[in-house]
């Protein structure tokens, strides 16, 4: 049972990543691309954990944690760049 469910999960999550990849390529504005990249990273966390359940080895959970953190960091820095043109605020601006 768990093998069937994880196989379905891998298929569906791959389709989700492909849909978000279409939005990255074709998105009409830059924030569209940023949220599509965020969705790709979040789905990648889910895909890694499904592979973890399927193999039963539980060695990829560190990678999932790091990807979740780095996607948040990338989203915030890209949002600051899109809003103000800079990533790191300095005192004289």
């Amino acid at each position, binding site marked *: 049972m768990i093998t069937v*469910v994880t196989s379905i999960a891998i298929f569906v999550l791959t389709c989700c990543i492909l*849909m*978000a990849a279409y939005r990255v390529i074709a998105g009409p504005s830059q924030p569209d691309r940023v949220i599509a990249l965020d969705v790709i990273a979040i789905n990648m966390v889910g895909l890694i954990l*499904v592979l973890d359940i399927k193999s039963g080895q539980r060695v990829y959970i560190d990678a*999932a*944690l790091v990807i979740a953190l780095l996607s*948040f960091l990338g989203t915030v820095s890209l*949002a600051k760049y899109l809003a103000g043109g800079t990533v790191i605020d300095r005192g004289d601006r």
Partner: protein
Amino acid sequence: MIVVIVSLLLLIGLVFTFAGSLGLLRLPDIFCRMHATGKSSTLGVSSIVLASFVFSFSSGAASGPSIKELLTIVFVFLGGPVGAHMIARAAYRSQVPFHARTIVNEWKTIEEEITEPQRNC
């Protein structure tokens, strides 16, 4: 028993994740798309992480439960709404166009009320 719970959590997570990605693909406006992804992806991935956490209690897993799954849930729940809020603010300030059938823009009226007394000074 654990296998049934893990499968149910995985299926719930799959439904939410697929709904979020489909909304990202099909909805007409960036704010509509953010409405789809900001809620669904967070809840879907949290269900999948919770499934992995429950699966670690079963006999098929190589090691026992760890705190890392719960930390992943915390970071996904913290990072998703904060990132979506910042992207929405950046999109609004860089004048990303609304959909043609948008009815109300409440922030525009609030902004005019805020900036109006400064012009009088």
